[in-house]
């Protein structure tokens, strides 16, 4: 399956680069695929199951990967409208940072899923906000 994603540069906030990545994949349960790729930074693979979604963060940078506790991730909720309940929509959040002596890359990812049972696949869509911070700069609370 060809990997496709959308990338937009955001206002750099005066500290460094910032960008957003959006992507969507439809996967059979148990299969593993790359959901998101930030070149030279990280790759996120996903494995959907009937009752869960496994995510794997691959560090492609020279920095140290640090997964952030849940209070650093985006607050908010998940909702369904119309007939969407039958597709069992769900949401997950993850946050991590890549740290070197010179910089910190802060990443916040929102993942939304819907199950297309008749096709035997789960649609996994995601949006990531990636910001370059100074080396000792605190990751802004979401």
């Amino acid at each position, binding site marked *: 399956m060809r990997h*496709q*994603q*959308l*990338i*937009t*540069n*955001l*206002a750099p906030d005066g500290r460094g680069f910032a960008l*957003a990545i*959006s*992507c*969507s994949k*439809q996967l059979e349960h148990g299969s593993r695929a790359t959901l998101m790729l930030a070149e030279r930074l990280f790759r996120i693979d996903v494995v959907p199951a009937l009752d869960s979604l496994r995510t794997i963060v691959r560090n492609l940078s020279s920095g140290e990967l640090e997964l952030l506790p849940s209070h650093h991730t*985006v*607050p*908010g*909720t*998940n*909702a*369904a*409208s*119309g*007939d*969407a309940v*039958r*597709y069992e*929509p*769900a*949401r997950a959040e993850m946050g991590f940072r890549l740290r070197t002596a010179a910089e910190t890359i802060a990443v*916040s990812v*929102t993942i*939304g899923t*819907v199950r*297309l049972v008749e*096709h035997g*696949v789960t*649609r996994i*869509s*995601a*949006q990531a*906000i990636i910001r370059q911070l100074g080396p000792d700069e605190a990751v802004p609370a*979401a």
Partner: protein
Amino acid sequence: LSSVRDPADVVHLAGAVEVEVGAPERELLRALAGRLVVTVGIGDGGSAYAVISHSGAGPVPCVSAPGSVDPVAEIAPEGTKVAMTAGQNPPVPVQLQLGPLSPEALGDGSGPAVEVVTLVLSVELGSDGEATFIGQSIGGWAL
């Protein structure tokens, strides 16, 4: 949405509706506390489409990926029509990324800014003239 304390906090909204050929458009998604609306329809020729509109003062930039017939470069407040492909199994969704958005882009600027909104929309044609649209919106005020 009755269990949501504040609709503006919704960071993943999923919607699904069925539309018959030639029937009036139906609302698929109402995101960002109603400031971003997606309606869908099927033309008389069987072509599926979505119309994305917002409450901002001017067009917002947008990028798109396969699932739409044509690239989408911006979304107008009054609505931009996005032609969608159908007939594939499973349906191939159109991916849209709206942004970067200024605080004024999708409203009056009074609330915290939304930087980017991701829309994923698909359509599946049924055998008896109806089409099922499924949509996801990712991104909320809390970014």
